[in-house]
Each structure stands twice: as structure tokens, then as C-alpha cells.
């Protein structure tokens, strides 16, 4: 049975849809599995047809775009009512995106610039349009502050791979073959020196055999590259106990857990695909869609559920992985002694942007993009969102780079040289910043 899916567009640019269409031939195996019941970008259904659906009739709803107009608010609420699962699709719905920069001003000032003051206007007394148009919200807020959201796929736009992974995950189409035996069977540390026996996290007991065993031969834990196995090793229970209390493990172990989860869900990077734990339970309970959880040993399911539970409650789990993790540039050869603007000179393609003097948001931005901007010699501006929301982003940036990079400036010196702190540090996420939302 094809799964019912709906796409809702709030105030947006169409780019997330273009990104999905950019998967091109990658769409071919997925499309027959979907019954798309609403998608104005591509399909001719009208608004009434969405209103006419029964509550909860649609399994998955993708909500995309920023909440700029009153129509955006109504439509988003309608989607929550009609869909069992809501996916925040792209950085607009996740964080408000650049549109949230308008929160810096009173809405009337914003409206006047466009409809009253623009230099090309020729009307004698122009005013804001009022007929058959919905009106504006005074401030933009992230979608998750309006309705409950189950999954978030950030990115401006999200990578096609992340979208396809999300859909495949929901459809239960897994990316890797599943072997009978667990990794432990072949592990050189099975007899002596086992990482789990030493009380540390290793995913060998629930992972398929078949790799070249490089990790354990270097003394590193298994992070699950080959996907879940059909049967588990005895030490699986030990692992399950450890994952119940991830707060107490080292950051290196958390990183392994993070990598495992992303591989387990066949998602390139978890930060590109956030899940709340109960989504799995919901799908399982409904029994309408098979997920990778389906048909696995129950201890494996429990471990994944523990990890997802931790993920939901600890946003810092994401902090483990940022854009620098996928950046090939070299650190330690140069030193920031002055903040440069992007138009100044041309950065070389080998050294870290920050150490060459340029502001790069990589160290405070969630991974998931694969460093696309960096590849064409442009510093990261943070479109996947901050690894830690709700803090003073300018100060956090300065603290982070002074601690982790070759920077010859004090915090005050660095920040004083950035003339546009909002546009530099909160370009995509200002809507999350309650300081600019006043009483709204």
C-alpha cells in the first residue's frame, strides 16, 4: 500500500522542492511507494481537497517555508491536524531562515519599505495590499513553536540525499544488506581486550559482519558501518545497559553512538535528519509503514530507541558533529590576527578559513551539508543551524574559535571587528532569538 504524503509550502523560495527534484533518477524507486495527496509545487490538487481529508489520514506531512503570513499559520495547523507525522522540511521551517532577519524591525517598518517607500513606486499614496491577501504575522517564529514537530531536516536547502533518506526510512527501504552474524564473531578483540568488557560503548554486538575490521585492530569501537545484523552477540545486553545512561559516557563514546545512529537509520549524517524518539513508536504502533526497526532483534530496537531518546532530550548530542568534521582544510599553519571581510583578497584553498582571518561558521554549525561551500572556497555562513540554540551566538562563536583555533585576538577584539553581528552570526536563525520578538 502506498503511503499517503502531503507537502505544505509556507512563505518560501521553492528551493527545497527543487532540491528534492534534484534527486532526479533517485526518485524513481520511491515515487511508486508514495501517494502524494497534496503538493501545489507539482500536483494540481486544491486547498479544499486537503481540508476534506480526515484527521490523521495522511501518514507524513512535510512542512516547508517560514511562517510569515496568516495563511502560513492556518495551513500549518491544518497539516498538523491531517498528518500523523510532521517533518520540518528545510531551514525555513526549522529556524525561520534569513526571513527571520526581519524580526530586527517592527513589521510596519518592514511593510512600508516595500509597499510605500520603494524608489520605483509611482502611486501618489501607496499602501499595503488588503484585498484577497492574508496579512502578515508581526514576527516570524520557528514552526516547532507553533505545532508539535516529529522530525527536522535542516539545510538551505537540505541535501537531496537527506530527503531521500528520510523518505526511505519512513518507507522502510533500507540502504544496506543485512548479514546473519554480528560483528563480534570476527572481532580480533572478542577473546581478550573487548571494548565493551572494559565498560565502553561499542556497537559490535548488533552490527553485521563483513568489514575489514580496521576499527578494532586499531583499538577503536565498531560504529555500525555494515548496518544491523539479524542475530546479536551476547554482549548486546551490556551495550543496552550503557546506552540507557549516555550522559555518563565520554564524548568519544557519544561520538560513536552518534555515528552508529546515523548509519543505523541509513542517513548520511544525523544532523541532517533529526528524529524525536517517539516517531518510531508511533510508526510501530500504527503498523502502517515498515521501518528499519521492523524485523530486527528486540535488543537492537531497544538500543536505537535509547539513543533516539537521548538525542531528543540532549540537543548537545548534535554538537558532537559540526561542519568542521567534514572540512578537509588544514589547521595550525596560519593565525587570525585581524578579522577579514569576504571581499578582501582571496583565501587559499588549503588552510582553515578562520586561521586565514575570515569568519567561518563551521565550528558552530550542524554538520549534514558535507561542506559544499568550503569546496568552492566560500566560508560557511551557517545554513544548517547552530549546534547550540538559545545562547548568545556572537559570544559563543568567539569563545569557540579562540579556544579551538589559532586566533591571536581576544574575544573583545574579535567581536569589535564584526560590524554586522546579527547578519554574521544569526543569519539563518534570528527567528529563534526571543530577544527580537518582544511581546510576540
Amino acid at each position: 500500500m502506498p503511503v499517503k504524503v502531503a507537502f505544505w509550502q509556507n512563505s518560501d523560495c521553492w528551493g527545497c522542492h527543487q532540491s528534492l527534484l534534484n534527486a532526479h533518477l533517485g526518485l524513481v524507486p520511491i515515487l511508486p511507494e508514495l501517494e502524494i495527496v497534496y503538493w501545489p509545487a507539482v500536483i494540481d490538487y486544491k486547498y479544499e481537497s486537503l481540508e476534506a481529508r480526515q484527521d490523521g489520514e495522511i501518514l507524513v506531512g512535510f512542512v516547508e517555508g517560514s511562517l510569515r503570513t496568516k495563511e502560513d499559520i492556518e495551513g500549518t495547523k491544518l497539516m498538523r491536524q491531517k498528518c500523523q507525522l510532521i517533518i520540518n522540511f528545510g531551514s525555513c521551517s526549522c529556524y525561520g531562515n534569513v526571513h527571520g532577519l526581519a524580526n530586527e524591525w517592527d513589521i510596519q517598518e518592514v511593510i512600508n519599505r516595500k509597499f510605500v517607500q520603494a524608489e520605483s513606486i509611482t502611486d501618489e499614496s501607496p499602501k499595503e495590499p488588503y484585498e484577497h491577501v492574508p496579512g502578515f504575522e508581526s514576527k516570524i517564529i520557528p514552526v516547532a513553536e507553533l505545532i508539535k514537530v516529529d522530525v527536522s531536516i535542516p539545510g538551505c536547502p537540505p541535501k537531496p540525499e537527506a530527503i531521500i533518506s528520510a523518505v526511505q526510512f519512513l518507507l522502510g527501504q533500507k540502504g544496506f544488506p543485512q548479514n546473519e552474524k554480528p560483528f563480534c564473531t570476527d572481532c580480533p578483540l572478542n577473546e581478550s581486550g573487548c571494548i565493551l568488557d572494559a565498560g565502553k560503548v561499542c556497537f559490535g554486538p548488533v552490527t553485521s559482519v563483513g568489514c575489514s575490521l580496521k576499527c578494532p585492530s586499531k583499538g577503536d569501537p565498531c560504529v555500525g558501518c555494515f548496518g544491523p545484523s539479524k542475530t546479536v552477540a551476547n554482549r548486546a545486553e551490556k551495550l543496552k545497559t550503557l546506552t540507557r545512561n549516555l550522559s555518563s559516557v565520554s564524548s568519544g563514546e557519544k561520538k560513536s553512538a552518534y555515528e552508529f545512529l546515523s548509519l543505523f537509520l541509513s542517513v548520511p549524517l544525523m544532523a541532517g535528519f533529526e528524529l524525536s524518539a517517539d516517531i518510531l513508536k508511533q510508526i510501530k504502533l500504527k503498523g502502517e509503514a515498515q521501518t528499519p526497526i521492523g524485523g530486527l532483534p528486540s535488543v537492537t530496537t531497544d538500543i536505537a530507541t535509547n539513543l533516539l531518546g537521548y538525542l531528543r532530550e540532549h540537543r548537545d548530542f548534535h554538537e558532537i558533529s559540526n561542519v568542521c568534521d567534514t572540512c578537509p582544510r588544514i589547521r595550525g599553519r596560519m593565525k587570525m590576527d585581524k578579522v577579514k571581510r569576504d571581499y578582501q583578497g582571496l583565501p587559499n584553498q588549503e588552510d582553515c578559513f578562520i586561521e586565514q582571518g575570515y569568519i567561518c561558521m563551521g565550528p558552530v554549525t550542524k554538520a549534514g551539508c558535507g561542506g559544499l561551500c568550503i569546496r568552492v572556497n566560500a566560508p560557511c555562513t551557517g545554513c544548517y543551524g547552530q549546534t547550540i540554540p538559545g545562547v548568545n551566538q556572537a559570544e559563543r562563536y568567539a569563545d569557540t574559535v579562540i579556544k579551538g583555533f589559532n586566533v591571536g585576538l581576544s574575544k573583545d577584539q574579535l567581536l569589535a571587528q564584526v560590524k554586522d553581528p546579527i547578519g554574521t552570526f544569526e543569519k539563518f536563525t534570528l527567528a529563534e532569538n526571543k530577544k527580537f520578538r518582544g511581546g510576540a
Partner: protein
Amino acid sequence: MVKEIEVEPVTRLEGHGGLRIVLGDDGKVKDAQFNITSTRFFEKFVEGRYCEHVPRITPRICGICPIPHHLTPTKAVEDAWGVEIPTPALKLRKLLINAKQYSSHLLHFYALAAPDFLLGPMADPALRNVVHVINKMPEVGVMALKMMDFGQKLCAEIGGKSVHPISAIVGGMKKPMDEDARDRFLKQVDEQIEFTKKTVDIGLKVVEDYWDVIANVGVVPTYYLGMTKNGVHDIYEGDIRIVTPDGKKIDYDVHKYLDALGEHIPAHSYATHMYYKPAGYPEGIYRANCLAMTNAADKMATPLADAALKAMKEKIGEVSHHTFAYHWARLIETVESIELIKELLEDPDICNPDCKTLDVEPREGQGIGVTEAPRGLLLYHIWSDAEGICKKLNLLVATNHNIAGIEKSLMHTAKQVFEDKALEGLKLPEPWIK
């Protein structure tokens, strides 16, 4: 009784809008509105930003045409600061904007427009979409996907990302094209030219099939807004060219755009209505986009495209008012873009590392950048302070240029449909697929 016909939302559209046609009790069409129901105020929130960061924000205006929204503000800042760019950067930008033109026009033709032609306008709405086209005509569908894929991958290669590129910077480009990537695209380009020819054949068959519609429905005289470089079709640089309903061509330097273009704020749409100022509103309503471009152009920049332009003009006139001829004009522009892509890929300059002016300095002043985006002229008028902070932006995008013209042709067509019952006598072809 007054009757309102609403279409909400208009689908297969990049943007948010509804159509509203008001019929009087005498059966006459009283009003035809295109209500654009969303806008996001880029004009305002770029204030206070670094000028060189404006091109990293504004691509979010349009996910289908982010490349013009990346390059045009870059040009505007360069104009304001008096910055020249090296020739390799100019060629890279032209390659980038043509790669976008190619993929966007094909997306428009195959994903947005073709479902109407291939299934027929009366088909089941549930089937009238590109997914169904792919299922029913896999050969054409796979070819279409390969073409869009080529264009988008080329955009991603040069722009860094195909949606919301980042590689242009005030003073040039951040990086030349890698030679191995260039070789990879060069290997595919001849196949793409063949695909384009096949697409043109499909387009011409559609023209033949729907000739009755093209020649009789939505033939609406308006002004046109295009861009040419000394009369030759150009989407990256040139002067603004206005074409009058009777075919007169008038050129304006981009810095004089306020002499030519006026903006009316309608009560019923967040997309404002642009018009030709000397003619007044609503008389001066113009249309932009590909047909406006072919109406404005004396010739195309490449041989195959120029031959195609001549063939179209022979059939529908030097200046065409046929709304449905937009699809034809779009294919002519597609041919030009793939020819230019080949020419530029063969130019060693695109791999030349001398692609950025190193000593760029901000200065106080205004600058204007203009390009032709896939759906019409794009103009950025930016004000910079001495430190290079953006003080103000006036922005004219394709939607503003087109919306009044769309209403005008909607009104005209609504009258044809509801008053003259013109559709009843129309000859429509059998659908290619059902």
C-alpha cells in the same frame, strides 16, 4: 448574481497565489485578479548587512532561479564600489547563469508545462503532473531528467550548490573550474545538444497540435521588457530594452531604469505591478520573460538558436503577442544556453586561477546590477556606505514584471472563455498520454 470563480492555490507555480475571476449577472467578466499571497521583505532585512553578504542572502528569493539572485546583487555592489572583474570570472559567471537557464527552462517545460500539453488540459487533475508523464513516457521522462540533472550538476560544480550558490564574490569568483570537472562536462555536452534538439522537436509538434489555441487564445498586445547587448540576446549583461505593442524597440541604460519602469501597488496582490512609465498605468503594462526577450532581440547569440528565432518570427511575426508562444520562445532560449555552455566549456579561461580582483575597497555610493533571470528581468539597486554596509535596496524581480501582464491576459482569456465561448469551437488534439 455576481459569481466569483476562485482557483486556490495556483499549482505548478514557484510562489503562492490564487486566481479570481468575477462574473457579473449579465455573464460578463468584471474582474480578473492574480492574488500573490506571500512576500518575505528581502528589500528590508538586507539593510545593515555587509554588501558582500547580500548575494549570500538573496538567492533565497527564488529556489528555481537562485543563480541570477546571486550574481545580480554581486554586480550591483561592484557597480557601487567601482570594481572591475577579471575576464575568467566573467566567463565563469556566464557559464553559471547559462547552466541555470538550461535547467530552469527544462524544468519549466517538462515539469510545469508539459503535463498540460501531453495529457491535454481536460485530464484528471490527479494525473496531470510530471510524475505521471515519467511513468507513461519513460523515454522522454528519463531524457528530461538527464537534461535537468546536467544543468543542475553544472550549476553545483561552479556555484558550489545548485540551489543557493555561493561562489561569486564582489571582485570575481572564489575559485576557477577544476580541469577534470570541465572535462567531465565537456564529454556530456554533445549528448545534451542532441537531447535539446529532440526537445525542440517535441515542442514543435506541440505547436502544430495546439496551433488553434496558440493563434487564437490569449493573444494580448502589451509592451515587453527585455535585455540585449547591442541588440543581441544576452542574459548576463546589456541594456534594458522596451518593445512597444506595435513593435518599436527603445533602449535604456540600466542606470536610467527609473525613467522606464514604474511600480504600482495594487490592493489585491503582494506582487506589485510594473509598467512602462512613459505610457502610464495600466496602458503601459508589459510582460517579461522569454517571449519578451525574443521580441526584444534582433538576433540570438548562437547559430542554432538564431535559426530557430528566425523560424519562429516567420511564423508568428517579428513581435508576437501570443501568450502560448512563451513555450516556443523558452525552447529557443534553451538552445542558446546549451550552445553557450559548450562554447564556454571549451574556453581554457574558465580554469584560469586569475578569477578574483584582489584589491577591492568599499566606497559610499549606489550601484545597479541587471541580469535576465529565467522568468524575467532582475534588477538590484543597492546603496552602500563608506564601510560597505548595505543602507538600502530596491529590488525588481521577474514576478513584479509579469504579474500585471498575466492579469491582462487572464482578463482577455476569461472574456474569450465566458463571454465569447471561444473554447467551444477550438480544435484540441488527442492527448499524447492518458
